[in-house]
């Protein structure tokens, strides 16, 4: 494994790729730090650029974007009480009060170091566990794969958003959209309604960019631009003593492990991990009442867990080809665009690229640390760029990106179409992530089902009798049942409290 990693480093340590990682980290930090722009959007916009690159170079850029995008969110979280990304929500709880006390510099130091070490720990775990996991999964046939896809789809659908039925519906719609075009195996054109442009189906890129970038812009058009954001920034210095750092050791480790675990489970990821880690830190603290008043523990918990979720979310992606959250769904799209078949075979057939990805992550993590320290002033300035200028430029970039896929305007039309769909779904409170995952995993589901049935000559029983497949289907059933039960309980509690509020 060590020689593979060294080979990965030698593949990535070229001037061009290092430059791409640097570019990715900087762009990611910019997107992460401006509220309203996310890591997902950064990757969506950059995917078309990577199109013409060799896979290792393209994936390195995307890894830089991922690390930068998740980390950048801490800047507005601490200065403006606005989480730049969902991953930094809990950072506002104590980061902003710290900044109010004039301790912004210290809060940054804690947050940056926590991000760095959380990320590092999770990348090391990723490197250690995904190859053996991939080896195990290589023996999976269509029956097992079908069951795993079902499992991750339902898990993701039920975990995103408050309503299970809406999450599942979004997943179903995604599978439906993926069916437009030629069917797998026999290539019969479905749902094309006679348009030959639809024969190849919707391209993944316009779908992703439309859903996540265009829809966001339509949503902001609704509420007119708010007044300019103003960052008050009185610096008390960045320096932390060894004692201060050592005091965070256990908190850091616990939060990172929480982030890692949540990242590995498909469907949750960074947006949830920081809140869970913050709650855990508060519960275990000797003085929980100080949380929320500006103590470093809160910042460390949130920022170490969200970066630790990066390595976690990449574990199922690399070893099984199953994305854990929206960003990894984008990365999966990136792999597909480069002609790499995601799945357990990825490490076997393209080990060089996988280890290149690992190396790129480690390098990007170091750059993230350096740029956040050195460029803090610059990133703070970025916060004052008005959104009414930024958003239209982003739309233009999206249009160019969609156009560049096949050099045809049809894909730009698809981009707008999915932008409207994404906007409507957000207005009607449907989560978007399950749709993306359904779109990506749907064809996989159908291919494996049909392949499995060919193998068994039309017999459905192997899906239930093959032990691993059966275990995953059982898990699916239990996770859905558990979620239903929990929701019912929650709703009862909610109704009672709501009722009290109304009567009091």
């Amino acid at each position, binding site marked *: 494994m060590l020689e593979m990693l060294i080979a990965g480093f030698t593949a990535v340590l070229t001037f061009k790729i290092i430059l791409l990682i640097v570019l990715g980290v900087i762009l990611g930090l910019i997107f992460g730090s401006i509220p309203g722009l996310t890591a997902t959007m950064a990757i969506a916009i950059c995917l078309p650029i990577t199109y013409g690159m060799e896979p290792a170079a393209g994936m390195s850029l995307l890894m830089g974007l991922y690390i930068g995008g998740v980390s950048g969110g801490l800047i507005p979280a601490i200065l403006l009480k606005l989480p730049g990304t969902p991953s930094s929500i809990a950072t506002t709880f104590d980061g902003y009060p710290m900044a109010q006390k004039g301790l912004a510099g210290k809060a940054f130091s804690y947050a940056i170091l926590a991000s760095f070490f959380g990320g590092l720990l999770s990348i090391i775990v990723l490197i250690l566990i995904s190859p053996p996991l991939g080896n195990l999964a290589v023996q999976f046939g269509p029956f097992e794969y079908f069951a795993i896809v079902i499992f991750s789809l339902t898990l993701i659908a039920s975990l995103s958003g408050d309503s299970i039925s809406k999450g599942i519906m979004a997943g179903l719609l995604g*599978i*439906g959209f993926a069916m437009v075009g030629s069917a797998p195996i026999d290539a019969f054109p479905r749902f094309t309604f006679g348009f030959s442009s639809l024969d190849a189906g919707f391209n993944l890129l316009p779908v992703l960019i439309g859903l996540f970038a265009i829809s966001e812009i339509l949503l902001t058009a609704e509420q007119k*631009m708010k007044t300019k954001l103003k960052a008050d920034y009185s610096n008390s210095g960045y320096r932390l003593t060894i004692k201060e750092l050592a005091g965070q050791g256990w908190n850091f480790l616990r939060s990172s492990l929480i982030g890692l675990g949540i990242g590995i489970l498909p469907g949750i990821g960074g947006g949830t991990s920081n809140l869970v880690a913050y709650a855990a830190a508060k519960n275990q603290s000797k003085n929980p009442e100080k949380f929320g008043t500006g103590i470093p523990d809160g910042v460390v918990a949130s920022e170490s867990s969200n970066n630790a979720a990066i390595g976690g979310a990449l574990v199922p992606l690399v070893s099984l080809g199953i994305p854990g959250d929206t960003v990894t769904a984008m990365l999966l799209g990136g792999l597909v665009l480069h002609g790499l078949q995601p799945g357990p075979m990825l490490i076997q057939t393209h080990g060089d690229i996988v280890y290149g990805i690992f190396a790129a992550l480690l390098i990007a993590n170091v750059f993230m640390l350096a740029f956040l320290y050195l460029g803090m002033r610059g990133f703070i300035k970025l916060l004052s760029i008005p959104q*009414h*200028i930024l958003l239209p430029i982003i739309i*233009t970039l999206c249009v*160019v990106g969609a156009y560049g896929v096949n050099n045809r*305007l049809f894909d730009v039309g698809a981009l707008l179409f999915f932008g409207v769909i994404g906007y409507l779904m957000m207005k009607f409170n449907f989560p978007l992530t399950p749709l993306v995952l359904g779109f990506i995993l749907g064809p996989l589901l159908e291919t494996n089902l049909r392949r499995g*049935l060919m193998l068994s000559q039309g017999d459905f029983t192997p899906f239930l009798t093959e032990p691993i497949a059966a275990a995953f289907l059982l898990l699916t059933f239990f996770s859905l049942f558990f979620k239903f039960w929990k929701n019912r309980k929650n709703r009862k509690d909610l109704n009672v409290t709501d009722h009290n509020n109304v009567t009091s």
Partner: protein
Amino acid sequence: MLQRYSDIYSGIFLLLLGIGMYLTTFSFKELTSSKIGPAFMPQIISIFICIVSVFIIVNGFKRLKFLNESKEEQVEKPAYFPVVLSLVLMIGYLILMPSLGFLMTTTLYLFFQMYLLANKSTRKIPVLIIISIVSSVVIYYIFHSLFYVMLPSGILG
């Protein structure tokens, strides 16, 4: 008003979509002799869409009852006009691009979209014009010359 009935409306729409999808699958032909053909999966998915949409409608009615009991009016009313206008701008951008070319349509689109999104106080027209021209030229140059994306050049080309 819309907020209140949103689940019911979206549920009904999705139910119709599911039924339509199911009916479309009857035109699919079997090209192989395997047990399940290209129509199998779409049928399963459309049936699931119908079932789940019924759940959404039922939950919508439950929520409606609950909202009526609590008598809380939602005061927030988003402005849909700029959304529709933005969409019209984007569609116009798309339609005019082949004939007018990327540079000209992008400059026009950027200017109008920025004008639309800006507050009255931040709406400085000369600044917006300069930003629109500069950014479309920069984007065109980067993608045309560095990434070899053949953007429509239109009447300027």
